[in-house]
């Protein structure tokens, strides 16, 4: 107690806390004095509203924290009320009746959760809504909902004011209890399940059990609310039970108006919804009731954080007035010197008993691999993502996994961490990992990071760090709620380790910042730090360096080596940035379309001809556009090619002339001349998502009839550039001029009408529609059906394979055929410029070659300009000009003869300097 007071007083020293204290005191005074000045019948309504707020608080835990949108909460309020009435009317003392109401509602709610474990999102809402319908029928017909059952209040509660205080105490206890849930193991697990259910197993969390716990707790809260309501009413009338459809919908309204995670907001909303309409004078009250859903919808549109969000904003505003603006934290990692890092690692080691035991068991047979995966095969539908892959990691070894996009690297990680089923065997420290459930693997010492941030972004950095240690948080949920000594000491230990790990990566100053507020690179580092916290034996890192500067990436390499040397952590590292592999790895595997194509020390693997080919594409691409078209074109395509030549292009320059003109431009790009020749000009483009800026001052241009390449590694901003050109993302700055018109910021619907056609990343198939329907949609903006028919004929002759598949669903085509269809569909609108995102993604080398050739031919024959986003160096053969992007900027550009230099540059950046 004295502790608490001391802490409270020291908290007051920070003026920022003053508004919160003032309003806490204000609410307390208001709540305590309420019976003194409020008429009794009005107090009665306040009591019911408080009873409902308990149920709403539970629902908030289920919806807000665990992400399960249940619409059946009122049903469990009903179960609680009926249980309490039934027991109470048979003379059970109220504490027992209340407890029974909570337990029965909680257990039933968890039971209903069982069939819902396999469905998510909207399906949960549907199922719970139908359950609500069932439950209200059942409760109404149970016979207990009648005036013949009485639950009489004990003598000390007969007065309304004393029942009010009784309710108030229970509400406060619920708030405190649910708050404890949030800040202990269970609450963190809820959050993790909500944000990435498919991944939580990798943190050692059982998604199923966690969800059932959330259902159970929400049910128990509803039961308590129902019991409070029942004892207040003493009997349930035949109609107007608390479990009907309307109260059920109003409960949702309360949670949404109140705001996720804000008890004050929710209690206030419950009073607004359940009490105010009855407490106010009739007319005003009725309007209040109608206003409730209006407020609810308005909140959902304008203020998704609800009343709680408004309260927090006011709090922040007043805090800033009193204490000045908070010091802006530096979102980048600090430089931590190597000595500090070493100390942190020692600290982590001491803190981890398990690792010490393991070290003892590990030393004897150093030679045996820590991880030995053999014959791992994964199929998704018809696609073989991994094809009998063998990978071994020795204890304390850092092993690299490289390969182009879609090679199956992340899938392999998912197999090891148990998120994807596979055939084959994985021996880990002599245990068959395949028989260990996914959530058990973290406890065995397998930790990982994800390519996209896999940990909850709303939670603070430190909460994420603690969440990552879930298998080490060994206490019962109820212990956590009651703050038993075991919980407190465990939580303290987890926090200490989290801080050590943060210090190791220079992140400790960011502990209290919400993860989502940090730049992408820093978030990744946090994820690495979180994975290290448990002192795993095997760490799987999926593109840990994406978004880091080269200094930061060097520092990360140093930390990883240190972790390996001092703690003996073995690592498997997926990287696009090959120099990083050369820097840290002892051994390296290269994957290509699901197969291991090379293995050995990094320096050897990166020189392996198969690897070079896989990364750079075919060395010798037949250059269709450099030879007369008729020579390279297969006979069947030569004829119809002239048919596809769009009418609009007839008066344009003939290909040869155009090519010659382009040549001149390249040789002597005089300013005025260049201006005329620009079909597309992008100048100073800046764009991004939310707080994340991806593009910085991107400028480039495309001349009529030209093929231009936009190259760069993953995350360089290529796709974002195209998405901004299309209008999917609004540019923040800069201009896009197409064909003399400013088009930046226009909606994507206008893209085709402006003469640009897009082949989106992943080909943008409409899988349920047939090939013909997809093609028809390509010409959607044209209203003349005869014209569409004519174009369709031309396309079918150019792409005979598509005409064979005309009536099949687009989703059933192979990857290569889909790419054809995507390009053909884009051509249906007869665009002036074709934008293609990752033409070769997921295609075999042969198919890639075919696609590139086809693009070259299309350009040659129809004169359409093409802007291709690519990773494969082989695409360089296609174009006369290339721009290379790095970290959201155009890093270099070249045309004509200079392109050979670009090639060397790209080869270096993909495969490391070792190649040259």
């Amino acid at each position, binding site marked *: 107690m004295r502790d608490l007071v001391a802490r409270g007083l020291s908290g007051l020293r920070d003026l920022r806390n003053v508004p919160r204290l003032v309003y806490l005191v204000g609410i307390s005074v208001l709540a305590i004095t309420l019976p003194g000045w409020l008429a009794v019948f009005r107090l009665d309504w306040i009591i019911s509203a408080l009873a409902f707020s308990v149920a709403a608080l539970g629902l908030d835990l289920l919806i807000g924290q665990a992400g399960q949108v249940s619409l059946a909460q009122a049903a469990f309020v009903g179960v609680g009320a009926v249980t309490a009435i039934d027991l109470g009317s048979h003379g059970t003392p109220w504490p027992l009746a209340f407890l029974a109401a909570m337990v029965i509602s909680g257990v039933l709610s968890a039971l209903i959760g069982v069939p819902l474990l396999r469905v998510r999102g909207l399906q949960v809402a549907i199922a719970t809504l139908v359950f609500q319908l069932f439950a209200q029928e059942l409760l109404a017909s149970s016979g207990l909902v009648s005036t013949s059952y009485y639950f009489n209040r004990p003598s000390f509660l007969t007065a309304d004011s004393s029942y009010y205080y009784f309710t108030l105490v229970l509400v406060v206890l619920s708030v405190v209890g649910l708050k404890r849930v949030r800040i202990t193991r269970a609450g963190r697990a809820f959050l993790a399940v909500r944000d990435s259910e498919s991944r939580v197993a990798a943190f050692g969390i059982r998604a199923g059990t966690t969800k059932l716990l959330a259902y159970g707790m929400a049910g128990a809260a509803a039961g308590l609310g129902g019991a409070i309501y029942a004892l207040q009413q003493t009997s349930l009338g035949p109609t107007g039970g608390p479990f009907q459809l309307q109260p059920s919908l109003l409960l949702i309204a309360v949670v949404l108006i109140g705001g996720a995670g804000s008890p004050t907001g929710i209690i206030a909303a419950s009073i607004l919804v359940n009490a105010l309409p009855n407490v106010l004078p009739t007319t005003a009250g009725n309007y209040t009731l109608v206003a409730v859903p209006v407020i609810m919808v308005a909140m959902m549109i304008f203020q998704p954080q609800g009343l709680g969000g408004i309260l927090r904003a006011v709090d922040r505003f007043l805090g800033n007035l009193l204490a000045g603006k908070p010091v802006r934290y530096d979102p980048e990692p600090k430089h931590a010197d190597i000595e500090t890092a070493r100390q942190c690692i020692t600290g982590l080691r001491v803190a981890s008993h398990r690792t010490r035991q393991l070290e003892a068991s590990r030393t004897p047979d150093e030679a045996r691999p820590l991880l030995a995966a053999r014959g791992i095969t994964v199929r998704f539908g018809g696609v073989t993502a991994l094809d009998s892959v063998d990978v071994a990691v020795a204890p304390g070894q850092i092993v690299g996994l490289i390969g182009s996009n879609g090679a199956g690297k992340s899938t392999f990680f998912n197999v090891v961490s148990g998120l994807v089923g596979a055939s084959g065997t994985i021996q880990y420290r002599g245990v068959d990992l395949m028989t260990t459930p996914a959530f058990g693997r973290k406890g065995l010492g397998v930790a990982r990071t994800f390519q996209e941030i896999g940990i909850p972004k709303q939670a603070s950095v430190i909460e994420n760090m603690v969440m990552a240690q879930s298998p080490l948080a060994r206490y019962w949920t109820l212990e956590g709620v009651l703050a038993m000594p075991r919980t407190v000491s465990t939580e303290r230990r987890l926090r200490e380790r989290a801080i050590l790990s943060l210090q190791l990566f220079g992140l400790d100053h960011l502990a209290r910042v919400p993860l989502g507020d940090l730049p992408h690179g820093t978030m990744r580092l946090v994820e690495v730090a979180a994975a290290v916290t448990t002192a795993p034996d095997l760490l799987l890192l999926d593109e840990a360096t994406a978004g880091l500067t080269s200094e930061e990436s060097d520092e990360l390499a140093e930390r990883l080596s240190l972790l390996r040397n001092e703690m003996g952590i073995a690592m498997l590292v997926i990287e696009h940035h090959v120099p990083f592999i050369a820097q840290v790895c002892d051994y390296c595997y290269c994957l290509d379309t699901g197969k291991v194509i090379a293995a050995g020390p990094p320096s050897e693997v990166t020189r392996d001809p198969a690897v070079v080919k896989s990364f750079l594409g075919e060395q010798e691409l037949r250059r269709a556009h450099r030879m007369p078209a008729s020579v390279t074109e297969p006979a069947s395509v030569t004829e119809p090619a002239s048919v596809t030549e769009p009418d609009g292009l007839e008066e344009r320059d003939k290909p040869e002339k155009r090519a010659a003109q382009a040549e001149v431009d390249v040789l002597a790009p005089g300013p005025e001349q260049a201006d005329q020749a620009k079909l597309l000009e992008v100048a100073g483009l800046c764009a991004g998502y939310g707080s994340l800026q991806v593009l910085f001052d991107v400028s480039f241009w495309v001349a009529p009839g030209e093929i231009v390449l936009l190259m760069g590694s993953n995350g360089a901003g290529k796709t974002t550039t195209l998405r901004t050109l299309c209008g*999917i993302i609004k540019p923040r700055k800069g201009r896009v001029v197409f064909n003399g018109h400013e088009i930046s910021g226009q909606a994507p619907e206008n893209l085709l009408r402006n003469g640009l056609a897009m082949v989106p990343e992943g080909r943008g198939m409409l899988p349920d529609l047939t090939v013909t329907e997809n093609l028809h949609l390509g010409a959607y903006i044209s209203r003349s059906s005869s014209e569409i028919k004519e174009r369709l004929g031309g396309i079918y002759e150019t792409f005979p394979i598509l005409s064979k598949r005309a009536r099949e669903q687009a989703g059933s085509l192979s990857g290569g055929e889909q790419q054809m269809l995507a390009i053909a569909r884009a051509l249906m609108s007869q665009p002036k410029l074709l934008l293609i995102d990752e033409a070769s993604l997921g295609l075999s080398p042969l198919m890639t070659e075919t696609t590139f050739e086809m693009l070259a031919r299309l350009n040659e024959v129809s004169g359409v300009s093409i802007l291709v986003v690519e990773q494969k160096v082989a695409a360089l053969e296609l174009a006369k000009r290339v721009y290379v992007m790095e970290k959201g900027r155009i890093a270099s550009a070249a045309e004509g003869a200079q392109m050979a230099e670009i090639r060397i540059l790209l080869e270096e950046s993909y495969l490391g300097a070792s190649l040259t």
Partner: protein
Amino acid sequence: MVTQIVTGLAEGGAYALLAVAIVLVFSGTKVLSLAIGEMGAFGLMLGLKWDSTSVPLIGWRPPENVAGAFATALAVLCGAVLGVVVERFIMRPVENRSPASKLVVTLGIALFLALAEYQFISNSGLPMTSPLGSAGINRLHLLGSSLTWDDVASLGLAVVVAVLMTLFLRKTRFGLAVRATTSDPTVSRLLGVKVSRVHRFTWVLGAALAGIAAGFLSATSGEIYPLSMTAALLYAMAGAVIGGLDSLGGAVLGSLIVGVLQGVLSPRFGSTAAVGATLGLVLLVLLARPRGIFGTVNAG
């Protein structure tokens, strides 16, 4: 047994129109709309109130035998107007939220309309005879059971609407755009489809259909009161989920299954058991075949 099945089919037929409305909106917008029932009911309640008073301003009072038809027509009109308003001012701003939170938004709309009905139209049930005028309540005898022409008309209408809409979606340019939007809105936009127009179209058509459905459903039960169409909507939604949320034919079939389930089980085991069986079936479908019998996309 046969009698009960026929009765059940009649009940299911009434849900089917509502289920078709749900499927239309879902196909166009990926929103599972719980507002659509109340959007149909609002105009109907207004019309029924004016049947007994008289239409304000013009002071005309519909004659007794077309009172139901007048109210239903008003329901269709109001539904269409509400469809435009809801799509433009409520659903568009929340377009990028999760499917579940959009469902909750539609709940808010339903609640608002219900409370507005309660407040401004009637706080108790309004009697409803038949959308077909006095002809609708005439009975015909079929396989030993007695049906009203309303029952036959609503089932027939549901089938006709489902067939016409399916043809429309398969054969016309705009229908293709609607299906493309169902499949992938972003890609559709890149192909020049004005997705917001698709959204508006499905909301307006869905809500107008819900107006007709409200007319028939309330004629079956004899009255309409605030939230009663939302309760009926839950059965229709169960039918749509069972049949497949993006399949118009599936919606009709699913509703008939739900109707027959009610018709057969209610007399023997009580309505609670019938609702329980519906719940069981919905859960079974969600677990075993989340896209429904004929559907192509998963709900959520």
